[in-house]
């Protein structure tokens, strides 16, 4: 009798090997230590940290959070401690773990993007970059990086020149044609794509008649947006050859597997961390259980499975 092979959860994102497909979504996992009490960070496929910029950003005034039906709006406004402080104060902690660290970053201009990207190259303990071109929280003129194909091409190409690290481009879902934006990012040098970032939304308090968020609009995340995210991953999988990291409303292993079947090589868990701080490892365990029940040996075999037939 042959020993049953244990289920293999390994996946690759370009040159990056992950022990399992479960990553954290930028902005929902702090810089890592916040969750160390609740899970063994070594178990994660990768840790993606809060979006960083050249200089620290103070972010938007509160209220920054509004709950909506099966979702939440946030307008954090990209508050972060800046790249220098991150490397000095936060990275040493993360280096203690075997889990790859992916740095999410953004800029206010083309130059800032390029400059920010160049800061990570050669820094020990940083395994890949995730470039956020899609944050809907910044004021006018900003979100154009992720919604105008020409600008996306320009900024991704500029960043590509500045880094040898695997470059993941995180797409905005607030576009007419996500497949087009994906192709543009691929052609401009992206090694992988993350999708989706939050949908732009808003809520009004009918008693005060004012927007509930101080910043008026915010980004919608959570289970509410999962159907949109699944559709986009499915459409983009058909359109590009590079691997996809799927996210948007993942709450459990079933949701994560749905993203993989839609075409994601890995997944990121965001809002769910707020609901259950140990959800990431529960998802990994749930994936293993699913594979054992279904006698699936390689989780890789599920990537894009919904496209077959």
């Amino acid at each position, binding site marked *: 009798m042959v020993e049953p092979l244990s289920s293999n959860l390994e996946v690759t994102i370009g040159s990056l090997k992950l022990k399992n497909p479960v990553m954290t979504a930028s902005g929902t996992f*702090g810089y890592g230590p916040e*969750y160390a*009490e609740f899970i063994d960070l070594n178990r994660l496929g990768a840790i993606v940290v809060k979006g960083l910029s050249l200089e620290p950003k103070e*972010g938007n005034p509160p209220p*920054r959070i*509004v*709950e909506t039906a099966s979702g939440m709006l946030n307008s954090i406004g990209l508050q972060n401690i800046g790249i220098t402080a991150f490397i000095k104060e936060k990275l040493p902690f993360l280096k203690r773990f075997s889990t790859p660290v992916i740095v999410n970053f953004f800029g206010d201009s083309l130059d800032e993007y390029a400059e920010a990207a160049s800061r990570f190259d050669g820094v020990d303990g940083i395994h890949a970059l995730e470039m956020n071109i899609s944050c809907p929280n910044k004021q006018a003129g900003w979100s154009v990086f992720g919604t105008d194909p020409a600008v996306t091409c320009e900024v991704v190409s500029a960043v590509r020149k500045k880094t040898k690290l695997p470059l993941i481009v995180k797409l905005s879902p607030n576009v007419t044609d996500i497949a087009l934006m994906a192709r543009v990012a691929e052609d401009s040098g992206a090694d992988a794509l993350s999708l989706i970032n939050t949908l732009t939304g808003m809520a009004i308090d009918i008693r005060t008649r004012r927007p509930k968020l101080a910043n008026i609009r915010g980004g919608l995340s959570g289970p509410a947006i999962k159907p949109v995210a699944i559709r986009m991953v499915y459409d983009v999988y058909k359109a590009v050859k590079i691997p996809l990291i799927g996210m948007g409303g993942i709450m459990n292993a079933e949701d994560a597997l749905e993203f993989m079947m839609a075409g994601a090589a890995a997944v990121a868990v965001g809002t769910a961390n707020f609901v259950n701080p140990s959800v990431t490892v529960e998802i990994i365990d749930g994936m293993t259980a699913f594979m054992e029940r279904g006698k699936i040996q390689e989780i890789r075999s599920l990537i894009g499975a919904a496209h077959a037939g």
Partner: protein
Amino acid sequence: MNRYVTAEITGNFSVGKNYRLLSLRCPDTGRKPKAGQFYMVQVRDSSDPLLKRPFSLFRKTAEGIQLLYRVQGKGTTLLAGHVAGDSLHLLGPLGNGYPVQKPVAATASAPASVTVAHAAAPVIIAGGIGIASVFPLIEEMKGKATVLYGARTNDDLLLLDELKGLTDDFHICTDDGSCGEKGNVIDLLQKILPADTKNLPLIYACGPKPMLRAVSGFAVSRNITAYLSLEEHMACGIGACLGCVVKIKTKEAKDMGTEDVQQRESSAKDAAYQRICMEGPVFKAEDIVW
């Protein structure tokens, strides 16, 4: 054991028109909750409502904790529907409690002529459901505190008998005068701490924002140290989402003194957002940028 646990409800009783006391049996996480800390409570195992709700520690019990809450919106209405035997997910204790300085008797530096009963005994102020947060502090003070408790109406004043047993110096007011003085806690505060009070107490306060702001104004103008427990919408409760911020003066700004700061354009260096769930919920009044 980490602070994310499943707790069993052992009681969920009405303690007033729209108020309930939730008793929870919690596994021991090895942490002793302190007055001013809070918990994130999952009101239902569902994606709607999605987020946990923050509630202050009301009381530490032998088997776990008690939370005192106001039935206000969707989540608290669902919470009110739970019965003994149900279980729920609980994250906590979170945040920093009130920094407690044990009250001392009046010393030489405090002349015997001061008008307040326990000169250096702290003044604890609760506005509305803010009583939940300061209640364990009042207990801790073992009678050595002046307690001011204000609410909208008589219906919103909770656990009065119990409170009266916990402190000798207890002052009540309501907006409509339906119980205690008619007026707000600031009126009370001014009465019990007239301008010539020498031995100034610490102030601890929890309540609605306008009240806290007024308390802060009072304390700063009188050079009294006041610890205020703030609220903001929260997603995670553990410092990860950056949702629950308040602007706090930076150390540099504080070192400069108030006047210097007011004279120049405020810059990012003067104040920075801090997380109420991590650096708070209790902040010093003088540090808060309103």
